[in-house]
């Protein structure tokens, strides 16, 4: 075997230089590029993993928020329903109260108007009855004094018909009401006639009440005996009412 030592030396140097040159201008830049790209990929993967974590956290937060919103919505709906029910009940109650108050007011108004109407009609009827009675009396020629005497005579009969206990009460005194104030002579005559019935002279207090139309009434705190046209008209009206019912 024959080796060319000069060639061997040249080749050793050549290959050493080539290894150095390629290592500097070929392998190192290429490996740096690869390492840089791997670092980029690793960094991007890390960033993606981080972003994925953030997205997951946001998804969990959104899910929790959505659950909270659903719960809040249900709570709002429940409160609104409760408020609507309460409002409906309150409105209904208020309407019922207003209707009852209106009904009561209407009823009272109707009752008052009915009372007023009845009073007015009663007054007109009484007035009409008095007019009619007066015209009848004037047509028959009977004087007012005769009518008054007749009514007083009916009063005497009523007092006479009273039980003994009540007549005893009348002996202590009473109010004698007349539709028209009598003159003194007539007043003494009537007092005398009553004393004759009661057996003693009672204390008589005279008063005048035109609503009696004509006639008299004996009044004590516990007793009232009347003989007047008003009492007659009331009696007739009561009879008519009973007859209708």
């Amino acid at each position: 075997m024959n080796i060319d030592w000069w060639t061997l030396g040249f080749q050793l140097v050549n290959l050493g230089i080539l290894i150095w040159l390629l290592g500097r201008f070929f392998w190192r830049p290429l490996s740096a590029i690869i390492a840089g790209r791997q670092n980029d990929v690793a960094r991007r993967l890390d960033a993606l993993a981080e972003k994925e974590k953030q997205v997951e956290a946001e998804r969990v937060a959104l899910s929790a928020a959505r659950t909270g919103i659903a719960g809040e919505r249900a709570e709002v709906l429940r409160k609104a329903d409760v408020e609507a029910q309460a409002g409906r009940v309150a409105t209904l109650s208020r309407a019922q109260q207003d209707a009852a108050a209106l009904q009561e007011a209407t009823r009272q108004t109707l009752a008052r108007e009915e009372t007023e109407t009845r009073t007015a009609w009663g007054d007109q009827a009484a007035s009409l009855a008095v007019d009619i009675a007066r015209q009848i009396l004037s047509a028959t020629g009977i004087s007012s004094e005769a009518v008054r005497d007749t009514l007083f005579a009916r009063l005497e009969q009523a007092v006479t018909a009273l039980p003994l206990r009540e007549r005893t009460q009348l002996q202590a005194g009473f109010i004698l009401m007349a539709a028209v104030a009598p003159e003194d002579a007539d007043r003494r005559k009537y007092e005398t006639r009553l004393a004759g019935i009661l057996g003693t002279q009672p204390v008589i207090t005279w008063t005048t009440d035109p609503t009696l139309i004509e006639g008299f009434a004996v009044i004590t705190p516990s007793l009232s005996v009347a003989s007047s046209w008003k009492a007659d008209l009331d009696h007739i009206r009561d009879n008519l009412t009973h007859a209708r019912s």
Partner: protein
Amino acid sequence: MNSPLVTPPLFHIGPVPVTEPVVTTWGIMALLVVGSLAVSRHLTRNVPGRLQACLELLVTTLDTQITSTMRVEDPAPYRAFVGTLFVFILVANWCALLPGIAAPTATLATDAALAGLVFLAIIVFGIRSGGVGGYLRTFLWPSIVMVPLNLLGTVTRTFSLMVRLFGNVMAGAFVIGIVLSLAGLLVPIPLMALDMLTSAVQAYIFAVLAMVFIGSALSRPTASPAASTNPDRTGVSP
């Protein structure tokens, strides 16, 4: 026909003869360096072109081979050496296909230089890995009795590297030359294609064996140095 073991000088620089393999090697060096400069200027980190993708695939494959064969975590210290050996041998073998150019690896001096570089690399990387003591302790495996055989093996495996590459490349060149002289112009083409494949395989084998030999010299505190990197157990045969 000249002896393949003799390389006549093309010219002299003073008293120093310059042979054809040296000139061819300079040409290959110029080609590789200029090509590297041209490629490295257009490297991009974003979307690589086809050429850059192929070169990145070469680097990635080389790193994978280094880490799996030498059982190291960082292939960077060995990448330039092993990769340059592989690329140079491959280009040197293939340049014989060009008319008028002989493969530098078909001369014993070039193969001896390659094997010598591997021998030096084994020592350098071994000392760098575990110091002088660590490197010398690798000769004690499996026992001190094996020190002479390990020393002898270090020399013989370097020698086998040289002879293996020289024999294969020179044989390919001889076969093509003989067939060309006997049969004609186009007949050697299948043999030339086969020679391309053989040349690539030889480049790969040389690079792998260099990795194995360097790996066997690296100190590993957790494993016996030759247990995993014994070249006799690699399955690579000449």
